[in-house]
């Protein structure tokens, strides 16, 4: 099935997915998915459980490589280059395309150590440089004023929404270009969710964001583009406002009005 695409301009694509098929062993999880992720926009993937949205998200930084028996066919282009090309350094890819997970997962270290962990792994040892990046990253995640006087405290002491923002700061420290978020607010209360959503709207000025959410209202609130998936297929993809006011496909309308799923 070919999905319906509204108003996508090719030249502003950060990530392009072309006829992507994905298998978990023999299970056909993604069926000829085609879509584009535009620069400095938030793209949301919605759909009922098991529709393939998290699978698709994990294809964008090859996290699915870690799953035994998983295989992909088709193309995923980052700035025009296929990320599944054998010459691609996966570790480098995952720095450019970082991920925030459903449950905040700060390391059992200090706040400071969490933020600079990626830098240290990359060999950065200069204390001034580490401090500078830590401050920049925490500021970008709206945490600096809250945490600047307790950088040596354990990250695990923080409330959940701050833990999630710390994970974002940790990601930002290694200067990604694309931020993938897999249901980043599922474990958070409504106020914490609102703070993460506001942060996303700020971050998109400098980053490209793709979010998977089972909360379609969240997709409506924050995203510029939305893709509705069902049973591994991209049913409809396009401008969020259009999709939520006048979707082209009945299947989309049924889902967003609560008649299905």
């Amino acid at each position, binding site marked *: 099935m070919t999905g319906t695409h509204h108003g996508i301009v090719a030249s502003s694509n950060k990530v392009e997915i072309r006829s992507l098929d994905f298998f978990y062993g023999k299970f056909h999880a993604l069926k000829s998915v085609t879509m584009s992720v535009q620069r400095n926009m938030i793209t949301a993937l919605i759909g009922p459980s098991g529709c393939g949205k998290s699978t698709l998200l994990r294809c964008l930084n090859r996290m699915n490589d870690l799953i035994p028996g998983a295989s992909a066919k088709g193309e995923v282009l980052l700035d025009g280059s296929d990320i599944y090309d054998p010459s691609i350094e996966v570790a480098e890819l995952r720095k450019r395309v970082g991920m925030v997970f459903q449950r905040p997962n700060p390391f059992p270290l200090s706040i400071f150590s969490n933020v600079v962990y990626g830098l240290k792994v990359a060999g950065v040892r200069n204390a001034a440089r580490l401090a500078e990046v830590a401050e920049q990253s925490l500021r970008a995640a709206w945490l600096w004023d809250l945490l600047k006087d307790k950088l040596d405290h354990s990250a695990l002491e923080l409330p959940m929404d701050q833990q999630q923002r710390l994970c974002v700061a940790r990601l930002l420290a290694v200067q990604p270009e694309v931020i993938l978020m897999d249901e980043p607010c599922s474990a958070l209360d409504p106020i914490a969710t609102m703070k993460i959503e*506001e942060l996303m*709207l700020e971050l998109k000025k400098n980053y490209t964001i793709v979010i998977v959410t089972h909360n379609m209202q969240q997709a*409506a609130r924050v995203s510029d583009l939305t893709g509705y998936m069902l049973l591994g297929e991209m049913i409809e993809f396009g401008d969020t406002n259009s999709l939520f006011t006048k979707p082209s496909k009945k299947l989309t309308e049924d889902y967003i009005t609560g008649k299905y799923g």
Partner: protein
Amino acid sequence: MDKRHFDVELDQLREKLVMMASKVENLINYSIEAIRKRDATVAEAALAMDKEIDRMEIEIEEAAISLMARHQPAAGDLRFLVGAIKINNDLERIGDHGVNIAQSAALLASVPEIKVLADIPWMAGLAVSMLKDSLDSFISGDPEKAREVCSRDDQVDELKDQILRVVLTFMMENPNFISGGMTLILVARNLERIADLATDISEEAIYIYQGKVIKHGAEKQSEEGSVNR
């Protein structure tokens, strides 16, 4: 954290509505002035102003619907968006009445001036002040001012009936004046509709800021109902 992005978008919508309200007020004042000055040339300019108002109506309506679809607002935010859509429609219709008045000014300029015109400027003044005050009540969040506007509508209705009687009598006595008389009646009718729409805007402002529905005497009925229990 500063304002929510949603609040920023609501502010932008409010500003657009304020701008549209200003354009509508200008058009009405312009058209009424044309009646006073017997200016036949204003109709085209009034049409152009109205075209811009129509364009803004569509833009504002689409923006409001988009905000409702994307943010699922509740409480005051929801009432504001529902009220904004209605006020937007009311403003566009007021603009249409302004064009009608401008077109009538052109017709009246071509017939001899008649003394019976005297009450039209007075009625126009009442309608324009109701419009201005209703818009103020919405913009500044003043439901008491809005209620006060609603109380003035009866006076405008009575004035329209009075003008109708006077003009009809004059037409019966002066058949040459029928064309001018019909035009005057139309002007009075348009002014009465402007006053009605100003009342609607006030009712919507009360709904936005107090959550109360007062149209069709609903508030009075509910008060009487509580007294009778």
